[in-house]
């Protein structure tokens, strides 16, 4: 590492330490009311002390995330491959989908609650719808970016459209598929948690809301930290996967 | 005796980084009479572009002085010096004619006047009819023609050209080279033309200045005594080869190092 780079890293580390220190000291010193932001140690302490409660909310949460993940990524990517490999389909559907992107999907949650009740189904339904279009658009973009020569070569060898997708586009667009997984996963996690916050009987989001109504700030922050941990780990895992796939393709 | 239009006296240039200074040019003395076409060549990194930027007023020399028409150059003098770069660097949101008129707009010349002047320059560079095209609708060669028109629109005495044809294909380069000579013979500007191509340097210029590898020093000053107008046939003649070879000997040494 060159000296200027080291200097930069040190400054950044100092910055993060300063932020963490402020998070701890400003509430303790009364500069920020503890109700608004409890000291970092208190939030983490609650997480540890009440770990049974938090960990207990995870099975439901993870279950809902997993099912949505499969629906979104399976369905979204499959549809993305289909649409992406057809110029006509892209031309017809992309403008509609891009406009649909602007619709604030959060307003669908009350509908989901009416249709599916307070249980897991409504969370899965909401998270799946929420994440579906962006994931599909990423997959489409990935296929669209493939050189058309690939498809033409395949067809020249007599491949049917299905074979072309399965044996040519799919492997070639693997990096973008992983990118779509990364995006879809992140949106699914947020979708489930937010849905739980809005109306549920169980789950991490529900826990956060409950602590909030009880004005239990450390409890709220503990939950948020946990969510950040989950999304963070998901990011790291998928980035690693992305790198592996990219490396595998070079070989 | 013709007074030198561009006078570079005892110019040295170095760039300082963390206490260590990197010399780019050393002791350059160069006088260019009015109306002369001078090529500047040298191995990569010899400071040719730096030299041009000094004459353009984009930088101040670490030592020595650059003068244009007797006046010391300390800042860009747009009315005296025009500059053309390797990339045309046109403003992508302006049409060709607006691009050419741009220097005049900066000087707050009224709209009708500047558009007329711009249109005339486009005609001079062979682009009549393309005034309203946007840069992304023009080929590389056409973009450079617009850039040349822009460089000429204020009728500067000096034209600086920094490898203007380097990113074009060979045929376009040849065509534009001849176009440039035509425009030059009509307008009689003083031209400083930096290039990597020895062929181009000899073909276009009255005089070729050869710089050494970094730090750039003037190692040769070759008078090109080929008759004008230049023709492609000359490039296969003996004299052309001799001149090119003389220059090549200097550069060969430097590139090998």
């Amino acid at each position, binding site marked *: 590492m060159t000296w200027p780079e080291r200097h930069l890293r040190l400054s950044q580390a100092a910055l993060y330490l300063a932020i963490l220190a402020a998070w701890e000291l400003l509430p303790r010193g009364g500069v920020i009311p503890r109700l608004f932001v409890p000291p970092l140690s208190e939030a983490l302490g609650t997480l540890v002390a009440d770990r049974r409660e938090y960990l207990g909310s995870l099975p439901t949460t993870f279950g809902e995330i997993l099912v949505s993940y499969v629906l979104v990524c399976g369905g979204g990517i499959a549809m993305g491959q289909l649409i992406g490999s057809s110029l006509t389909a892209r031309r017809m559907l992309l403008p509609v989908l891009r406009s649909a992107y*602007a619709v604030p*999907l959060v307003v669908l949650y009350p*509908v989901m609650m009416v249709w599916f009740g307070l249980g897991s189904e409504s969370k899965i339904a909401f998270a799946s719808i929420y994440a579906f279009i962006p994931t599909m658009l990423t997959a489409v973009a990935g296929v669209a970016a493939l050189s058309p020569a690939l498809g033409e070569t395949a067809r020249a060898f007599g491949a049917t459209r299905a074979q072309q997708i399965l044996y040519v586009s799919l492997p070639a667009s693997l990096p973008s598929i992983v990118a779509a997984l990364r995006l879809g996963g992140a949106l699914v996690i947020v979708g489930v*948690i937010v849905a739980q916050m809005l109306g549920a009987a169980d789950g991490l*989001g529900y826990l956060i809301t409950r602590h909030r109504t009880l004005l239990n700030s450390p409890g*709220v922050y503990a939950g948020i930290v946990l969510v950040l941990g989950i999304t963070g780990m998901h990011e790291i895992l998928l980035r690693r996967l992305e790198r592996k796939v990219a490396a595998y393709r070079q070989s | 005796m013709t007074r030198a239009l561009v006078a570079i006296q005892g110019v040295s240039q170095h760039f300082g980084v963390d206490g260590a200074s990197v010399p780019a040019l050393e002791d350059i003395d160069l006088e260019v009479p009015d109306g002369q076409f001078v090529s500047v060549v040298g191995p990569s990194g010899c400071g040719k572009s730096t030299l041009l930027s000094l004459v353009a007023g984009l930088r101040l020399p670490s030592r020595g002085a650059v003068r244009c028409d007797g006046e010391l150059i300390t800042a*860009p003098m747009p009315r005296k010096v025009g500059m053309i*770069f390797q990339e045309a660097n046109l403003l992508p949101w302006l049409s060709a004619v607006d691009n050419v008129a741009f220097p005049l707009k900066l000087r707050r010349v009224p709209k009708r006047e500047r558009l007329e002047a711009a249109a005339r320059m486009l005609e001079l560079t062979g682009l009549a009819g393309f005034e309203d095209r946007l840069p992304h609708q023009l080929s590389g060669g056409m973009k450079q023609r617009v850039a040349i028109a822009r460089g000429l629109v204020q009728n500067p005495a000096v034209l600086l050209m920094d490898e203007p044809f380097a990113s074009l294909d060979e045929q376009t380069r040849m065509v534009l080279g001849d176009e440039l000579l035509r425009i030059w013979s009509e307008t009689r500007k003083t031209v400083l033309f930096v290039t990597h191509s020895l062929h181009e340097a000899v073909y276009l210029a009255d005089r070729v200045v050869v710089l050494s590898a970094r730090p750039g020093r003037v190692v040769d000053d070759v008078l090109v005594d080929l008759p004008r107008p230049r023709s492609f046939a000359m490039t296969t003649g003996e004299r052309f080869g001799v001149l090119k070879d003389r220059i090549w000997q200097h550069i060969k040494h430097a590139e090998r190092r």
Partner: protein
Amino acid sequence: MRRHERVIVAAFVLGLFGLWEALARLGRLDASLAPAPSTILEALMRLLKRPEVLTSLGVTAWEAVAAFLIAVPVGLLIGFTLAEVPVLGALFRPLVNFLFGVPKSIFLPVFILMFGVSIPQKIAFGVFTTIFVLIVGGVASVQSVPRELVTVSRVYGADRWQIVREIYLPAMAPILLESARLGLVFNITAVLLCEIYGARDGIGYRIAAWGENLQMPQLYAALVIVAAAAVAVNEALRRLEARLGFWREQS
């Protein structure tokens, strides 16, 4: 989209609605969950005549606009500063990217802890959600200005104001507008989320209330209104973006 393709898509959509209408009329669909489109349309007309509904729409719009008007200049200013002062930019970049990637919705309970359930709370949350898009956009727009064009202007004698007006502004406009558009979409979503989560007024609050009371036609009608408004605004901004960015090469 080619013209005949447009017709196909339109016909398809109309066909779907026709099918829906038919199924509802025939009693094949549960009227409480999926009333006929005609019923929804009727409800929509009635809603638009009710003053309290119009007031709610106004409240939501006001919250969104206020948050937007705060987030845009502040966000852009921060973005420009980070881009123009490389030291600051390098120091804060990882932090900004991290915060940009963190899902903001989970912080909603924190804002309620701080502000209670109130209009300032919604505006503050809206600003929080939107500002990062604008910071990133601000940085990107400055970086998109080709440095060579600045050099060219200097050669031709431009002073600092001219460089800003003639080079920076036109170059930055498309990206600025794109971030504004994305920011607005995020902003509207954030405000609606607040209202569904907990509010005393606003169209999101009404949507949640109608859901709870199983007043489906009103609920769906409100969804249509919100979706239409969001898409309309998005399209309008996209059109403006296209006009200001006409010079960018289409890939």
